[in-house]
């Protein structure tokens, strides 16, 4: 479908890579909305997520139009979004 990453919902702040993407690549994310010319800052493998825009530390990460977690550090557009910079909000018995 001529896209590098899929956007599930218009409110999403992340997109899912549909092929292995390399740092420095300019990528196009499509689906519910379109963001073009994102310069990748990290390697993002097939199925992994990249930031569609800059995300502040503490900001909720949105996918499927819903919150899937919270940024543990500032994330810039084109960065890999995964375990190293996102915390889950549910089932956090470690915080009780």
């Amino acid at each position, binding site marked *: *479908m*001529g896209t590098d990453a*899929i956007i*599930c919902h218009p409110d999403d702040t992340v997109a*899912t*890579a*549909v092929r292995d993407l390399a740092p420095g690549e300019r990528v196009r994310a499509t689906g519910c909305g379109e963001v073009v010319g994102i310069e990748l800052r990290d390697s993002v*493998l*097939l*199925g*992994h*997520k990249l930031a569609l825009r800059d995300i502040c530390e503490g900001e909720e*990460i949105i*996918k*499927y139009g*819903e*919150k*899937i*977690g919270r940024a543990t550090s500032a994330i810039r557009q084109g960065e890999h*979004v*995964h*375990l190293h910079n*996102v*915390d*889950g*909000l*549910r*089932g*956090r*018995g*470690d*915080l*009780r």
Partner: protein
Amino acid sequence: MKFLGYVRPDGRVGTRNHVLIFPTVICATAVAQMIQREVPGTVTVDHPHGCGHMGEEKDLIVRAMAGVCSHPNVGGVLLVGLGCELITPEVVSGAMLANRRCELLSIQAEGGTRGAVQKGKDLAARLVAEIAQDEREPTDISALIVGTNCGGSDTLSGLTANPAVGAAADRIVAGGGTVILSETPELIGAEHVLSRRAASAEVRRRIYEITAATEELAMKAGVDIRNSEPSPGNKAGGLTTLEEKSLGAILKGGTSPIRQVISYAERPIESGLVIMDSPAHDAVCNTGMIAGGAQIIVFTTGRGTPLGAPTAPVVKVSSNSGLYRRMVDNLDVNAGSVLEGTETVDELGERLFREIVSVASGRLTKAELLGHNEFAIHSLGLNV
């Protein structure tokens, strides 16, 4: 639409016609296997249960065993016990709601392994001869209960395979059939989305109740649920949090109203989409849905799994083409076509729906061809 099924005396319809050699206690497992190996046309299971269970756990295990043994996919069952256990063949047969061809065998009463195997072989061979008389007949798909499950998911599961299963689920429900959405941990973070489709206030209350109870397990244990959910393979596949996994997993249920929330291994009363409160463990979840009456399971995967079930076909759907090519021996349908743009989610849903009807009518799945028969009953840890 019709499928070809085995119509049973209780009106339920089987997609298979198995003779099941079922040990009601772990002590009878080896004898059950010896009988199964010597009588062609039989299947068996192994499990660690049958003794020491207390209270609610005993009820759950008896319900699950009876549900599997009286299932419409089972034309005949030989229940094998030791003789001194808590859950004897008599206990299980007493709990079986349907009047299936059922034989009972006790190892102690037959004087040990050799005697029990000899008698068991005779009983099993007779059951095999009896079920050979059964014939498939055209049956409306409203008789189908389709269980859905996902295991070894990646982020693509939520973009391709799961929504396609959802599109097939909508077609089953539109035809009057029943679809089970399960794996309670994988509803956590998506309850609010599901609750909007609850058919009643009670269903809405139950959705929140079962997810809160499961989340509380992690809270009580003092751990981040993300240590276990998503699994290491899920994370390698790009899934970051449980919420993300859940929001992708619930797509398997399609878009129809949620009619009922049932307990593990419980039979749905309502048709349409129902939720079963079950663990996310693949085999435990499948066994619970089969015990609840599912005659076929549709299972999505992004990392790949060989999983099957002893008495029901498991149709496995790959979330991506790379996996499908690597594990084609184990996978039935490739949803990677959606990513490649050669098929829409809805077109794939239609293809999957037809595949479900075809498998329900007798076409064997990859798991059946390979002899996969994973089986596990949920344990509440209430045993001594």
